């Protein structure tokens, strides 16, 4: 057995967790059991003392559902339409025409209450604008302190004032707390999360603080629902400054709907030779589905593995498990990948198991809006095991449906 394999075996053995660490973990678990079993109505998500340091845990829970939040560090250009600034003028105009500014919020829009245990006592929120088509949804959510004189919102992972996207804080190393003090305000911790149908889906988020201490959150995700009426929910967690301990973190949910009046055109391409095995691999392309929406193109390549069954853990180290498909026109000109739709996911298993003979997989990718020819060339390329180009497959447009 080689050294590396021996090393792996050793690493897989259980380690001895230091007693102090283990005790802290067990303490948290015991408290959780105790609190839940003592007939408390609400699930407590904070307040278990750890290492003598208290931390407002519920305020961090929104991170779970987000793909990563980074401050949008430039100003004056944070509207949803700025996301299309590098697209063609046709796409920009389309996006402008599809911008929804009167978003229907079924609960919570600008709601206020005098009950301090509710989120709406501390902040108001509304979905300011949205753009959606059959592939993509973009939403801009404004969250504002009810008392903008006193409070400044502090998003979950904003530790430095720089993170807030305010130009006056760009060149400082001030913490958010120090910056708030400098403008005579108190930071009010807030977080936003977004309920998705598929918890493994990605929601990317940017945010920027406004001068009055409110924050604009910009969310982007794939449209998997593809219905005319899209229904979504967001949650807001606020850490109350007037209470400490378990009751400090409060959460409420708010619902909104978007009417997607865009049309998607779904086009299928089939291989000219349906039995063609991509040279250098054991893969047969079965179908290419391209959904052209108003603002983007989503492409999915479905292919089948025709080689001998291999152990599942060998799949990713095999040529066939390493391949992704790229699009070209007949003259060899590449169709550009927009790197957004589908996250550029390769080799998602659809049928069978990994490495099994006749198992079926799918690559998803996004392409920049372009005129789609009747014939496309798919070329297979290794991603990891050397960036090698393999064979190509000619596919021709067949059916077309309007979604």
């Amino acid at each position, binding site marked *: 057995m080689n*050294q*590396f394999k021996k*090393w*792996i075996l*050793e*690493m*897989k053995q259980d*380690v*001895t*967790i*230091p*007693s*102090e*660490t283990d005790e*802290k*973990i067990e303490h*948290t*678990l015991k408290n*959780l*059991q105790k609190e*839940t*079993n003592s007939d408390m109505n609400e*699930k407590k*998500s*904070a307040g*278990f003392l*750890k*290492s003598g340091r208290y*931390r407002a*845990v*519920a305020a*961090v*829970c929104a*991170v*779970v*559902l987000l*793909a*990563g939040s980074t401050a949008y560090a430039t100003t004056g250009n944070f509207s949803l339409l700025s996301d299309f600034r590098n697209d063609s003028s046709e796409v920009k105009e389309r996006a402008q025409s599809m911008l929804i500014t009167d978003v229907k919020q079924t609960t919570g829009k600008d709601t206020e209450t005098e009950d301090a245990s509710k989120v709406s006592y501390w902040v108001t929120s509304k979905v300011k604008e949205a753009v959606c088509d059959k592939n993509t949804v973009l939403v801009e959510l404004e969250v504002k302190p009810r008392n903008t004189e006193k409070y400044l919102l502090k998003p*979950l*992972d904003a*530790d*430095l004032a720089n993170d807030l996207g305010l130009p006056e804080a760009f060149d400082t190393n001030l*913490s958010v707390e120090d910056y708030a003090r400098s403008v005579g305000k108190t930071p009010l911790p807030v977080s936003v999360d977004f*309920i998705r*149908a*598929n*918890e*493994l889906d990605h929601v990317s988020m940017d945010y920027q603080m406004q001068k009055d201490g409110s924050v604009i959150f910009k969310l982007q995700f794939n449209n998997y629902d593809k219905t005319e009426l899209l229904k979504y929910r967001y949650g807001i967690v606020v850490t109350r400054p007037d209470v400490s301990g378990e009751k400090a973190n409060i959460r409420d949910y708010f619902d909104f709907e978007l009417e997607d009046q865009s049309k998607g055109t779904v086009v299928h391409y089939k291989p000219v030779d349906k039995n063609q095995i991509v040279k250098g691999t054991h893969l047969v392309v079965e179908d290419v589905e391209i959904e052209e929406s108003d603002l983007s193109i989503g492409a999915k390549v479905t292919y089948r593995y025709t080689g001998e069954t291999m152990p599942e853990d060998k799949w*990713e180290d095999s040529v066939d498990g*390493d391949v*992704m498909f790229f699009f070209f026109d007949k003259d060899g000109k590449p169709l550009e990948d927009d790197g957004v739709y589908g*996250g*550029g*996911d*390769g*080799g*998602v298993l659809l049928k069978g198991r*990994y490495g099994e003979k006749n198992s079926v997989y799918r690559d998803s990718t996004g392409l920049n809006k372009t005129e789609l020819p009747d014939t496309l060339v798919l070329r297979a390329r290794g*991603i*990891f095991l050397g960036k090698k180009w393999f064979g190509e497959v000619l596919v021709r447009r067949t059916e077309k449906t309007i979604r």
Partner: protein
Amino acid sequence: MKTLVKKAKRGDADAFVSLIKQNKQSMYKVAKAILKSEDDAADAIQDTILVAWEHIGTLKKEEYFKTWLIRILINESNRIYRQRQSCISDEKIPEAAVFENGYQTVEWNLFFESIDEKYRLVLLLYYVEQFKVREIAELLQLSQSNVKKRLSEGRRQVQKKLEAAHVIRKEQLE
């Protein structure tokens, strides 16, 4: 495990605690791969437990529980790591020793001392926790090709260190 997850989703704290205990080793290794300090790793795990309990009701597919849990842990660990980075004052805070009690084996020592942090987590998730490349890509918000590149480079680093350690041991024996 699916039964326990179903029960936990219905508010059964005992079931949830069992799930956490089943995954404790994995959680500890992942937290340590990101945060060398024991205190920070403990905090990350504790926060993860509370966040996971808060959100268990939103988990749609029971079979994804471990992936979901580890994702929360990675987020928590990264948050603590970022806070640490921004708290470093003029006087640099010495890093907590990684050899505190638990990691006594040569293999773990090599892992922490010699491997760049960028590669540690992907190596751990792939080889030790046996996540697939696509799952690691989801967890770390990387493309699959990036994950593979990091695995390749991480593996190369480990092999190089192992060879060097082997040569030193041989010299010591002679």
